[in-house]
């Protein structure tokens, strides 16, 4: 089975939620839509307190190419534009608060009925950008940017990422099982945008039902590949390496080896955007972990308060960590006063015994991190440099190649927070670069 070099085998823990069908999260009374839900240039709110909005109406307009708008998740009135804690930075960030009127009416003309395959490439790109589609795996990079490679790069490979290698999470898995058509048709649209006549859907072998179903439904030009179960199989560079044998050059992007990777959820969102004009206002999220009473896969609107989501899933059991995303790369939250975002692929609640809160000790140079690192780095040295804040030396030791997958930290017997050190060093290096 296809795979890459390095990696780890953490307990999958997917049994908690993988067999639970997607349920619709009921309409909430108030939504908190963060203005910045993507990676890249900021966006600017275009509504003000008191405005009436309809479901799917644009709330903010992007400032720049690498930027996307956000949309109203339901119909109602804009209560205010204030600041709430941003799940990614932990700092207060602008957000549009909407009081729902309960009618949940679509904005004028939505949803559309059109055939994306009859549309031109430019029209499709505009539709994707206007719908605010971002990478739904968690990175939230604007999709239309990824689909517009510069002229000098030829793209010959399109990979749909259904690996879902993060333990616990099953949102992509459920999506592929329950709505395979959305994923496959979205894949078709992206193939048209990229001008390709074939694509590969990559799924880890621990989802045999999804593999079977996709193989059954997929048209001939879409190939379904089973991948070895190993973390981080779903990381872009590792995925490309496993399927094509190509290595994205250090400091480069997938397009440098002619590849584009999109998450399965993103493909579904692209289909909605192109065929029906529906913006990205809801997503499928796994609410799971042993700290939550009833793990569920939910279809939830962007902007839904986390507290309501937790209540909907039976409340908390015992909690040490609340995480947006998976356990390997997700972001720990310190409050329930936050809202679901476009990139929230999972809400994971871990008990103290499921996570790791012990202090770290000195590196014993065991080399396990070197074995585990999918990028061929020496994480132990980076962690030591991080302890001393020596960012220049760290850059010499390939700091910037680190993808922060967390494999090294997972295996480290001394419990060292290597990824944290790497993030720290990268921040120091950026700050030093900015100073010059």
């Amino acid at each position, binding site marked *: 089975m296809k795979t890459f070099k390095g990696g780890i085998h953490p307990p999958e823990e997917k049994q908690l939620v993988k067999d639970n069908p997607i349920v619709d999260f009921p309409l909430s009374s108030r939504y908190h839509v963060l203005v910045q839900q993507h990676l890249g240039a900021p966006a600017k709110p275009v509504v003000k307190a008191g405005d009436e909005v309809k479901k799917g109406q644009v709330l903010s307009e992007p400032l720049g190419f690498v930027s996307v708008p956000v949309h109203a998740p339901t119909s109602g009135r804009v209560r205010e534009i204030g600041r709430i804690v941003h799940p990614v930075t932990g700092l207060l960030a602008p957000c549009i608060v909407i009081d729902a009127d309960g009618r949940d009416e679509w904005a004028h003309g939505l949803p559309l009925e059109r055939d994306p395959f009859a549309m031109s490439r430019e029209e499709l790109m505009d539709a994707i950008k206007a719908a605010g589609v971002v990478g739904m795996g968690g990175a939230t990079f604007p999709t239309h940017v990824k689909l517009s490679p510069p002229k000098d790069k030829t793209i010959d490979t399109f990979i749909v990422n259904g690996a879902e290698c993060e333990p616990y999470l099953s949102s992509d898995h459920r999506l592929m099982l329950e709505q395979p058509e959305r994923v496959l048709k979205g894949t078709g649209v992206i193939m048209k945008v990229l001008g390709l006549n074939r694509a590969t859907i990559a799924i880890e072998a621990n989802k045999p039902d999804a593999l079977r179903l996709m193989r059954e439904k997929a048209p001939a030009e879409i190939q379904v590949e089973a991948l070895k179960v190993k973390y981080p199989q779903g990381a872009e560079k590792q995925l490309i390496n496993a399927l094509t044998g190509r290595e994205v050059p250090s400091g480069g992007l997938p397009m440098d080896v002619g590849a584009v990777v999109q998450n399965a959820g993103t493909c579904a969102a692209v289909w909605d955007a192109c065929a029906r004009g529906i913006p990205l206002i809801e997503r499928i999220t796994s609410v799971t972990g042993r700290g939550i009473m009833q793990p569920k896969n939910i279809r939830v609107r962007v902007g839904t308060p986390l507290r309501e989501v937790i209540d909907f899933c039976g409340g908390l059991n015992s909690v040490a960590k609340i995480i947006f995303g998976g356990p390997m790369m997700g972001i720990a939250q310190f409050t329930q006063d936050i809202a679901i975002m476009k990139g929230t692929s999972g809400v994971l609640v871990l008990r103290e015994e499921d996570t790791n809160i012990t202090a770290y*000790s000195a590196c014993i140079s065991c080399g396990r991190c070197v074995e585990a690192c999918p990028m*061929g780095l020496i994480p132990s040295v980076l962690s030591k440099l991080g302890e001393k804040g020596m960012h220049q030396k760290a850059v010499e030791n390939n700091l910037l190649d680190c993808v922060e997958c967390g494999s090294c930290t997972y295996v480290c*017997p001394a419990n060292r927070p290597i990824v944290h050190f790497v993030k720290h060093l990268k921040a120091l290096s950026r700050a030093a670069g900015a100073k010059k």
Partner: protein
Amino acid sequence: MKNISASNPAEDPVKEQAAKLSVYVSSSPHVHSTEDVPWIMRQVIYALIPGALVGVYFFGIPALRVIAVAIVSCVVMEALWQKLTASPVTIKDGSAVLTGLLLAMNLPSGAPWWLVVIGSLVAIIIAKQLFGGIGNNPFNPALVGRVFLLISFPVAMTTWPEPRSFFSQAADAATGATPLGALKTAIFEHGTIAAAPGLNLMDPFLGNVGGSLGEISALALILGGIYLIARRIITWHIPVVYIATVAVLTGILWLVNPEGYASPAFHLVAGGLMLGAFFMATDMVTSPITNTGKVVFAIGCGVITVVIRLWGGYPEGVSFAILIMNAFVPLINRATKPAKFGAVR
């Protein structure tokens, strides 16, 4: 702009209060393997037990005493130092116990208690804590302790009690030579190995020979080593390459001149090679990080061991070889960095 809470007003203020749970926040990842440093140390200690038991079987109570004194003094020394320097006490991680056990296994069973304590002092304080404690020591602490003792107290360190069965304890403490010592004496005095008494292979393989209390039985040490490899505590690279290097070098010389050099099989089972190859050279802190580095390191150890054994003043070169190669580890690590993903080729 006003700071607002993303939660909608709750009907029940008590519930609101209860939801304000204290949570932990750290960088990703949030899950962790259960194999931590104390676990690793425990595994190595388990793996050493067969070798230690054989030592106790053949050398009796004195061997047990040396082991006990070494472990206790190492742990006490570490705790004392950390108390005095007001740094966190780390004796629970088991590394001091392991150092004590390894040191004991590198000492003759007749070593007086003060000798063992001095060895522990050198190993724990000088070779480990001065460098910053676990993880920071460039040299294997137990080996530094042993070599220090060997050079400072050569007589006490080379008085080898004869092996006897545990159940037939004779009152007198007869002493003899180690196989390698006998070999060296024979070559030195007669110029040929033929003069060396009883170069059989079975006794050193099982442990019925004189020597440091933990090095005598190749069999028991190999069993422990296999356990470590199976448990993925160590990789095969260092022990296999180390042993192979010694076998190849001694084998070539033996083929050229069987009169002047002992057989490779003898060199493998005699002396501290097995103990060194499986347990001392593989010490994580003082060996290279990458597998390529480990191979280079092991070849170096093998070459130096053979050079010292065959032509040097000391009959055994394993300790020296590993210590010297420990010093090369930083250079080896620099030279054998793994190829990074996506490196321009």
